């Protein structure tokens, strides 16, 4: 597993994104899937940057590595307040422009991009795990 540890701050976003895009490229995913995973990661990270450490500064760790031949695991750890993003309610996507607000959209997109996603609380850390499967029929022409 490769890992990257950085402050829980928006300034860290690009480095985390570059890291995961390199890992997913090496794993052999299509460009569109790489973008989807990058998006899910951003949503998870921004949530941590904004909410995990109400007292001030904190850290985030992203780990990435293969599991078997056809799966990639991405783990996002933070030492912030207990927070299970997966159980957040979805926003109402049928609301009109006047009713739409911002709440819950990021986490909703994260869950849509990553069908197999788990949360656990472990040793005073939030651990969010994305399980990515390599599609069977890879289209090499992207």
């Amino acid at each position, binding site marked *: 597993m490769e890992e990257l540890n950085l402050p829980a701050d928006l300034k860290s976003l690009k480095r985390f994104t570059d890291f995961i895009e390199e890992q997913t490229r090496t794993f052999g995913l299509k460009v569109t899937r790489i973008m989807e995973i990058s998006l899910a990661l951003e949503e998870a990270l921004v949530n941590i940057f904004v909410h995990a450490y109400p007292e001030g500064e904190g850290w985030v760790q992203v780990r990435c590595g293969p599991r078997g031949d056809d799966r990639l695991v991405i783990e996002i750890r933070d030492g912030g307040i207990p927070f299970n993003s997966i159980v957040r309610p979805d926003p109402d996507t049928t609301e009109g422009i006047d009713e739409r607000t911002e709440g819950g959209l990021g986490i*909703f997109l994260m869950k849509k991009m990553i069908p197999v996603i788990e949360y656990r609380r472990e040793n005073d850390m939030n651990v969010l795990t994305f399980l990515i499967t390599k599609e069977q029929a890879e289209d090499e022409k992207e």
Partner: protein
Amino acid sequence: MDISGEKVDKGVVVSVTGRMDAVTSPDFEKEMDRWIEDGEILFVVDLKSLDYISSSGLRSILSIAKKLKARKGKILLASLKNVVKEVFEISGFSTIIPLYESLDTAMSDL
């Protein structure tokens, strides 16, 4: 993310290239606010070179759309592709912000 705007006779065409994420989306809002402060209310945003948008980008677009609606203005989005189009559809934003296949079809509706 790069953003450039051009005033045409019907309104303003804004081109956004690269990625609209939590870091860059505020720059989109700032640019749009500059045009709005100048009195512009009709916008087509050309997204043919936008590779990526996150919830931050959607929030910025929603904020601008609400502002323009209050001023009886319009914001139309053109040429969404791949993940950007997917995000608009999944979030339901495709039903609240008008989307067009091309800049030309958007301009004809402005």
